[in-house]
């Protein structure tokens, strides 16, 4: 029997991945779809396909000719007039765009930054450690990655709250409050443009924005619009997803105290735990592609111009690939999760995300190991792009400020 002989199921489903229902039931929805219709078609947002099986998501990520990343792919469509490079491009030019940023994101550069991340975490925890309570997401997991990416771009990191508000509006309000999202986008464009003007006036520095401005593709510098898009993408990737992963994991460590105990007793398991949290509590639920020609994919007829969501979070819970997929198992063997995607668009910030996550988790467990949730956990209402905690009130036994930062204050006085 060939695949053509197998009758494909009716792909129509009623599903909006930006809805509150999706946020609360995403993994049930994935499991249901996997059982009856792993290549599903939703009528929401003008229609789009969803892939939930690991192999399908993986295959689509590898086939850039059929599953293109051209900018018209987003569900819903985004209003920006120019592509965000590199994510809105396909090979071979994709590779040239990535090369501009790659040295800033290598495994070695992430490792070299670990002491800086730890210093930042120490400083942030010092601000609330004596109080015995905090919003751990608002006061640690949000500012740490945000300040890092602003510092790397050469922007004023003391303005991280403004940048975060714009980025959160861009990501989390775009489906239900496009005006707020657009205001966020406008602020980001304006401020990146001002930073570019400053470099043109005062000279380039040793920062990522200068590197993007001086980068070349096909021997030509990037148009200003593409520089802005590149910097915007770095802010999107840097500010939202790592905090999402860390917040998701901090919730799990309350729900499952045995996991917390294990991390405290056996800190060497943290790298494996990192991969398991990435798999089980994937922040970037999915990313879109656009079909380039009429085709049959896993028995379904797709047409040129159709949009497809590659649901990484669903793939990461596929029981055909992961034994007991809904269980968090730090000792899992063969954890080939797709939290950072797969193929030519693998997340450029993955190395930094891992190190920042590990620094934040280990510092929380070192300095406030008995934290409990003291109020309502608030999630971002729209989990369709990034599944993340917005606010997580915690209580813990108060502790002393770190001597390191205390001496820094003394010497500054």
């Amino acid at each position, binding site marked *: 029997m060939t695949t053509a002989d197998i009758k494909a199921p009716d792909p129509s489903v009623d599903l909006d991945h930006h809805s509150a229902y999706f946020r609360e039931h995403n993994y049930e929805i994935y499991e249901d779809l996997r059982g009856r219709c792993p290549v599903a078609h939703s009528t929401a947002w003008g229609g789009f396909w969803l892939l939930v099986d690991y192999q399908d998501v993986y295959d689509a990520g590898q086939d850039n000719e059929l599953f293109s990343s051209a900018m018209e792919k987003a569900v819903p469509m985004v209003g920006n007039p120019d592509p965000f490079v590199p994510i809105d491009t396909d090979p071979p030019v994709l590779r040239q765009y990535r090369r501009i940023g790659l040295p800033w994101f290598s*495994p070695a550069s992430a490792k070299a930054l670990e002491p800086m991340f730890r210093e930042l975490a120490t400083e942030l925890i010092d601000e609330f450690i004596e109080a015995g309570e905090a919003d751990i997401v608002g006061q640690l997991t949000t500012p740490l990655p945000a300040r890092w990416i602003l510092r790397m771009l050469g922007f004023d990191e003391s303005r991280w709250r403004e940048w975060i508000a714009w980025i959160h509006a861009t990501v989390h309000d775009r489906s239900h409050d496009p005006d707020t999202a657009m205001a966020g986008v406008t602020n980001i464009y304006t401020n990146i443009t001002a930073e570019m003007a400053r470099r043109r006036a005062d000279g380039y520095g040793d920062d990522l924005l200068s590197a993007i401005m001086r980068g070349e593709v096909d021997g030509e510098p990037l148009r200003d619009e593409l520089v802005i898009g590149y910097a915007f993408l770095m802010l999107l990737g840097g500010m939202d997803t790592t905090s999402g992963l860390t917040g998701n994991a901090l919730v799990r460590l309350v729900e499952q105290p045995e996991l917390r105990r294990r991390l405290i007793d056996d800190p060497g398991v943290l790298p494996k735990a990192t991969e398991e949290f990435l798999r089980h509590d994937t922040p970037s639920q999915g990313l879109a592609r656009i079909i380039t020609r009429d085709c049959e994919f896993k028995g379904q007829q797709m047409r040129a111009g159709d949009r497809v969501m590659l649901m990484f979070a669903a793939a990461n819970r596929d029981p055909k690939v992961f034994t007991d997929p809904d269980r968090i198992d730090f000792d899992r063997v063969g954890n080939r999760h797709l939290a950072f995607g797969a193929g030519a668009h693998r997340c450029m910030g993955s190395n930094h995300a891992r190190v920042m996550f590990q620094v934040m988790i280990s510092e929380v467990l070192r300095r406030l190991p008995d934290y409990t949730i003291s109020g309502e956990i608030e999630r971002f209402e729209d989990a369709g792009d990034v599944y993340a905690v917005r606010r997580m009130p915690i209580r813990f036994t108060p502790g002393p400020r770190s001597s390191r930062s205390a001496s820094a204050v003394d010497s500054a006085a």
Partner: protein
Amino acid sequence: MKVFVDPARCRGHARCLSIAPEAFEFLELEDRSEVVEGAVDRVGIAVLRAAEMECPERAIILEISEEQT
């Protein structure tokens, strides 16, 4: 035994570097890993197999001769 990273498959996830830093090196601008010389002697087959099993792109190829299995 032979071990190598398929340059056409590797996408620079760097999982292998975290599992066996003595056995792999990273080519920054190529965005991919390579096996260092003498990796098998340095870390042993079990560690290389662990790296192979965690690679999301299935880019690590282990060729194990019969007497080693």
